[in-house]
């Protein structure tokens, strides 16, 4: 088969034609140059991976390049709107080309030839199914990420005082939710013209490097809008985790309690609290 792939010129054209015959070229979703480019690349990577003995897919490192390419291609197909079947057929149509070449090459069919044929068929089917599988997973991942949006987890922003707002965070903070929190907080700052935002994390079970990144990012955005951020509700074990992880909070002021954060916020906004006489 490697010999066959060595003359990529005619193989590519025949394969593109086979794709068109099978109805999987989909010129309505991708243009011809993209189709040609991707098929050419696949042929090249396929040829590169094959040696005298057929390496096992996907484990053999000989397949790494092709596998990485298939990962990207499958994700791209998901976004382009291809169905899993169409994507699977992409590799399967290569069979048409190869079988034809084999048939021509070996008019009488000895047993070894059939064995090769068999192995070959199995390999191509496996490659097809692999890309189909990754496509499915990509679609699911994208849909799931989109659906997180619809989760109307209310992220209330509370007006604690003139110019001071509070955001109590509860539960785990994933990227979708973090984004929603940031959007809500920033919109609120714009509307209320507040100058201090207190983010209370006492309701968050753990703080890892990612959560710390959400916090520093939110603080940076708040700062760009001319306000400042204070993080409150830092429990002792959270403080330990932060130190252990070597996570830096980039100079973001932190307080153990909401009260402590409020006191700091008052300071920053030039308010003093006095007991009534």
């Amino acid at each position, binding site marked *: 088969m490697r010999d066959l792939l060595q003359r990529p010129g005619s193989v590519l054209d025949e394969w593109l034609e086979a794709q068109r015959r099978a109805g999987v070229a989909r010129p309505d979703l991708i243009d011809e140059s993209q189709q040609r480019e991707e098929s050419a690349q696949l042929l090249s990577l396929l040829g590169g991976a094959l040696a005298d003995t057929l390496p096992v897919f996907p484990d053999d490192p000989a397949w790494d390049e092709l596998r990485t390419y298939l990962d990207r291609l499958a994700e791209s197909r998901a976004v382009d709107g291809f169905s899993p079947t169409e994507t699977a057929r992409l590799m399967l149509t290569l069979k048409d080309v190869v079988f034809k070449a084999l048939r021509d090459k070996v008019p009488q069919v000895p047993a070894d030839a059939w064995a090769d044929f068999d192995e070959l068929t199995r390999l191509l089917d496996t490659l097809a199914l692999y890309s189909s599988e990754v496509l499915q997973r990509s679609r699911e991942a994208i849909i799931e990420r989109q659906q997180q949006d619809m989760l109307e987890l209310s992220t209330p922003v509370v007006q604690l005082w003139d110019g001071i707002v509070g955001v109590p965070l509860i539960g785990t903070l994933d990227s979708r939710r973090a984004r929603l929190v940031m959007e809500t907080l920033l919109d609120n700052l714009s509307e209320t*013209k507040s100058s201090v935002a207190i983010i209370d994390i006492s309701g968050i079970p753990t703080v890892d490097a990612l959560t710390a990144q959400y916090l520093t990012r939110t603080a940076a955005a708040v*700062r*760009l809008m*001319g306000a400042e951020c204070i993080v409150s509700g830092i429990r002792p074990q959270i403080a330990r985790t932060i130190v252990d992880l070597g996570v830096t909070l980039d100079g973001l002021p932190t307080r153990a309690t909401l009260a402590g954060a409020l006191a700091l916020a008052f300071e920053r906004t030039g308010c003093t609290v006095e007991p009534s006489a």
Partner: protein
Amino acid sequence: MARVPILRIGDCLVVTVHADLDDGSAVTLRDDLAGRVAAISARGVLIDVSALDVVDSFVARMLGDVARTVSILDAETVISGLSPAVAMTLVEMGVTIPHTRTALDAQNGLRLLGIVMAPVRESVRCD
């Protein structure tokens, strides 16, 4: 795009950026500001970007250049009016605008520069 007008308030300069700031106008703005800052020995520049719904890394770099130039002339730069969407996008991209302070809006920006807009006194009726 037309030259961006530069206003003067006391010893500070105020610029309101509108619509799409392109390559040419951004460079012109930087040079114009530098000139004016030097000419009046300004101590502060306020750049209001509240009309912008996009600030990409190029515009951010231009703003940073302005601020750096102005700071060499011993004046400071305040940028006001970054919208929630723009602020968030800049942060997600990892783009910063160094040498600047930021304010929510122009009024706060002027306050940061030490300029407080006094309320207009009501006229007294004489009967």
